[in-house]
């Protein structure tokens, strides 16, 4: 990745974070914390990694993305809007009556959403189905799915992982956002899912651990995935992140899992992001 490419990604990520604040502020609800921790990942997927076309969101051979942690829809929507799937101006209608931007992703209303999700543990299974289907159809597209660390407590995650390894779904990339916090508190306290790496390895996956708020690290993780294609194992990218990343008062605060910023908080967050943009542009 060139310095220029990285700079462009960083600028898109700022815009995605702005979109997250704008969406949740407009909705007066929603989940900013986990959207912000995954904002760099969403940016990387939609601006570098995935073969997608905003002009043809249902293209047969496109790569698929399933947001298994569906409550972080504000992050996905912001990335899709930034990539041009739909107007950014619609983001503030999130969760409003009559808006196509439903509280959790709806594949039938939101351009670019490949699967309706929201009930945890289910998106990964649907992604696994897409990957298995692609193998049966001899299609080369790749399937990506993003899970939260709290989500790993759902037993179905492990049913899906077992299936993925059993059927050698090396076209599948399972990404886990290890931000360490869930609604009721730290994941280590609510229901300790550690050691996550050993669990996925024991289930037959190839695991790579990265810092998820760093584009060089994200590139490293996905390069590993590319190398694994054809080798018969699903790839798991364990992504260490900061919940609420990029908005100072939200960072590492469990209370910002599912709460919208008020007007003052929104203004402060947007000012911080404007400053971040300025610094990136001037660097």
């Amino acid at each position, binding site marked *: 990745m060139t310095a220029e490419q990285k700079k462009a990604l960083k600028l898109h990520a700022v815009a995605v974070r702005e979109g997250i604040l704008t969406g949740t502020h407009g909705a007066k609800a929603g989940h900013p914390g986990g959207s912000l921790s995954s904002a760099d990942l969403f940016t990387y997927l939609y601006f570098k990694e995935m073969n997608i076309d905003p002009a043809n969101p249902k293209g047969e051979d496109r790569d*698929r993305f*399933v947001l298994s942690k569906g409550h972080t829809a504000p992050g996905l929507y912001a990335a899709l809007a930034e990539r041009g799937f739909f107007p950014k101006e619609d983001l503030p209608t999130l969760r409003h009556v009559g808006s196509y931007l439903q509280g959790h992703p*709806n*594949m*039938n209303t939101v351009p670019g959403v*490949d*699967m*309706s*999700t*929201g*009930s945890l*543990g*289910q*998106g990964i*299974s*649907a*992604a*696994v*189905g*897409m*990957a*298995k*289907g*692609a193998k*049966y*159809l001899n*299609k080369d597209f790749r399937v990506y799915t993003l899970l939260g660390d709290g989500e790993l407590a759902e*037993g*179905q995650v492990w*049913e*899906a992982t*077992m*299936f993925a390894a*059993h*059927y050698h779904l090396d076209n599948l990339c399972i990404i886990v956002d290890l931000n360490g916090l869930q609604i009721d508190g730290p994941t280590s306290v609510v229901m300790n899912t550690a050691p996550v790496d050993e669990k996925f390895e024991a289930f037959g996956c190839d695991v790579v651990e990265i810092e998820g708020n760093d584009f060089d690290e994200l590139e490293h993780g996905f390069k590993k995935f590319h190398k694994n294609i054809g080798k018969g194992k699903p790839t798991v990218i364990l992504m260490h992140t900061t919940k609420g990343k990029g908005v100072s008062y939200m960072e590492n605060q469990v209370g910002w899992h599912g709460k919208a910023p008020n007007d003052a908080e929104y203004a402060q967050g947007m000012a911080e992001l404007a400053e971040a943009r300025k610094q990136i542009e001037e660097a």
Partner: protein
Amino acid sequence: MADVKKVATRQSYGEALKELGAVHDNLVVLDADLANATKTDIFKKAYPDRHFDCGIAEANMMDVAAGMSTLGLVPFVSTFAMFAAGRAFEMVRNTIGYPHLNVKIGATHGGISVGEDGASHQCCEDFALMRSIPGMTIMSPSDDVEARAMVKAAYEMEGPVYLRFCRLATPVIHEEGFDFKVGKGEVLAQGTDVAIIANGILVPEALDAAKALAEEGISARVINMGTIKPLDEEIVLKAAKECGKIVTVEEHSIIGGLGEAVCSCVAEHCPVPVKRIGVNDEFGHSGPAVELLKQFGLCADNIAKQTKALLGK
């Protein structure tokens, strides 16, 4: 009845899948370690490359099917009714029903007639659960011929379908070539005193009950309601108007199934007395299927008895 041909509808299901599979490459089958029992092994032998065993993990299996369906594949997902409608309810509701995906759920071992396995496997709640999901089509065949026609119809229509098959071999009452239409009931016997609306393997019992009633001078109309949802309201209301009284018969709890669907329909549009015959809000237990059906009153004798009681005779 010794010379009557009997076939278990699960067998019909497996054979119909194989037949359809020969014509349609996009038909795939998923099972959860029960292929020998659900009879999807018939398909598996013919098309091993498109029969995917998901292991004993029904929740994952439903959503895997959902994912596959987005690629233009038409998955038939099979396990026992208890696990398809019960265990995996929320997967069916959220990841198949909500996005209205083209997934066909082939649930076998419905009802009390599972027999010896007992209550844990005797699903008498699946119609109720599946009826509550918007956009779900629900079918329950009366015999082998209808079962095969339903599998074909399910493949040909767009959207989620729940098909309920049974373990027990039961009489074949339809001629080959029977023209099944989704959402349409079928009058099997004309009558004017009372209408018996039945589905599944109790339809032959309803026909026998009508014969016995005829001998006592009671003219009973028998309607086979192969599709529970969407309900053929036209045929129900016609029966209500012309017969004045209705008996419903199903191998399901009297809560939430065909009986309640019929009651809701007539209560709103043409109130008439209705007697629901089904499993009376209780769990089943182990025993030979035919014996259990008799014990739970899911047989011609009890249908005739309850019908007479409704008519005050």
